[in-house]
């Protein structure tokens, strides 16, 4: 095409990109500056090269409000939480969708509706009673408590069911003729066929797990299990003046993993998200 560039489109898109990146750029540039300069209200948009090592220092920076748990520890908790939630949700949803799509068993539709209902019961609407149940089971301040209740997923089950229902009958017949049992069929045929959906779900659920805030706020009370998102918010809401350069460096560190996952897997993610949510 030899037309002149579409200046309007470039202008609008660039403006959009700048609006998204600007706050993050300020956080990045701010992290490299001295705490004193920041507290004077003297934040430069140009990062100080000598200050770049703050991104290393920040790993050891502790959250004073919670007994000094360091940033690296909180990052690990977040990583563990995101992985366990993403993989756990995928596993139990794929299994239950397989059961519901490929078998006829008593109370099948009741099971399906019970799972479906969880879509309508996010933590935000049942804060107190969920907390009470957690403490009855002694799950407060445990990694199990932090992750397991978030593993049920109506969204993932619905998606898998949809994918499984679209599997051609011939494929199932062929597998049966070859003498494959249900689980063999599940692992050798069903899962490979659904690989793109698995990848997309992984991105969505990893981001979901990494970004949890309210749940850890309820369940992690002694600091040992604070994920990074919770820790950073506590760093800026203490009574003392926050050490802004370190807090901003920690913030950048907290943003990198989920953004990397989304960008690296964007091809599956975009196709998958519109598929999953719709």
């Amino acid at each position, binding site marked *: 095409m030899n037309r002149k560039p579409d200046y309007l489109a470039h202008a609008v898109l660039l403006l959009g*990109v700048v609006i998204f990146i600007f706050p993050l750029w300020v956080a990045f540039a701010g992290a490299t500056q001295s705490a004193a300069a920041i507290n004077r209200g003297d934040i430069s948009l140009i990062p100080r090269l000598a200050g770049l090592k703050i991104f290393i220092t920040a790993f050891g920076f502790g959250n004073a409000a919670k007994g000094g748990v360091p940033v690296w520890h909180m990052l690990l908790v977040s990583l563990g939480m995101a992985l366990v939630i993403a993989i756990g949700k995928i596993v139990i949803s794929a299994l239950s969708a397989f059961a519901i799509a490929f078998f006829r068993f008593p109370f099948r539709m009741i099971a399906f509706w019970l799972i479906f209902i969880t879509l309508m*019961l996010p933590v935000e609407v049942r804060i107190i009673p969920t907390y009470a149940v957690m403490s009855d089971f002694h799950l407060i301040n445990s990694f199990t408590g932090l992750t397991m209740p978030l593993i049920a997923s109506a969204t993932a089950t619905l998606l898998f069911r949809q994918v499984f229902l679209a599997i051609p009958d011939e494929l199932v017949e062929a597998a049966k003729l070859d003498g494959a049992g249900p689980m063999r069929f599940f692992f050798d045929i069903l899962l490979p066929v659904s690989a793109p959906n698995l990848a997309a779900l992984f991105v969505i659920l990893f981001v979901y797990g990494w970004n949890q805030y309210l749940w850890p706020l309820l369940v992690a009370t002694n600091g040992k299990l604070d994920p990074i998102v919770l820790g950073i918010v506590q760093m800026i809401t203490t009574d003392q003046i926050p050490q802004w350069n370190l807090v901003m460096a920690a*913030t950048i560190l907290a943003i990198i993993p989920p953004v990397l996952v989304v960008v690296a897997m964007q091809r599956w993610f975009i196709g998958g998200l519109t598929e999953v949510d719709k």
Partner: protein
Amino acid sequence: MERRTLFAGWMLPAVLVAPQLAITVLFFLLPAWRAFGESVRATDAFGLNSSFVGLANFAELFQSSTYQAALVRTFVFCIAVTCLAMGFGLLLASFANRAIRGARVYRILLIWPYAIAPAIASVIFVFLLQPQIGLLTNLFGRLGLDFNYATHADQAFLLVIVIAAWKQVSYNFIFYLAGLQSVPRSVIEAATLDGARGFYRFRTMIFPLLAPTTFFLIIVNIVYAAFDTFALIFALTAGGPGTATETLVVKVYRDGILNLDIGGSAAQSIILMVIIIGLTTIQFRYTGKRAG
């Protein structure tokens, strides 16, 4: 829709659904059931005894002016966030769908905010707008605007709307772009040949084709604004100053966890459940997705 070819037996499938069902019953249904129980009881001042009070907690809520205010505030908040986030998402998607150089790069640069935690979005905006040190606060100050979200109620409310929308634009962008890409090129080209141009062409030929996407996104954005913004608001203002940014989910937390009003908070939970059940039902009924 059902499959024709099946596997036999009922033991195996029962085992396969068991983990999901167990978690669902223990951590979703049991708490929801308890919320019902607590919403019709009142606990005495010492938290020792509770007695059945019927719908008194609900009656009290609806008569309370702070609850009414929170309802209205949440409504305004949802509408504002939805309009802003969808408007910008559609605008960016319609330009990103044009055949321009670097379209793929733009796409990546516009989708990454999806990955940012709502609470973290607030943190980076605090750094920009912190009353004493914020870069933008100082800029506003030089322009003669006294910006302090910690003390000015309307500024705080405006700010949570802006951050919530900022965070949600990329979600809408992704869906609108997918929607636009399924509009046949020929439709767009035919419109161009007819001499229909720019906004007119968009409004009359393309926007109607996006109606299902738009409807779906309206529901999703309302649910997001109403329920997923707890962390965003709580990290920024904790509902303040006063109750300026106290939406319904923030109020449930404040009343239940901070003020220990168990019955009142449970009643609020029930109301929120009714709202979200309503929204989800609308979504499934009218977006062509069938659950059963």
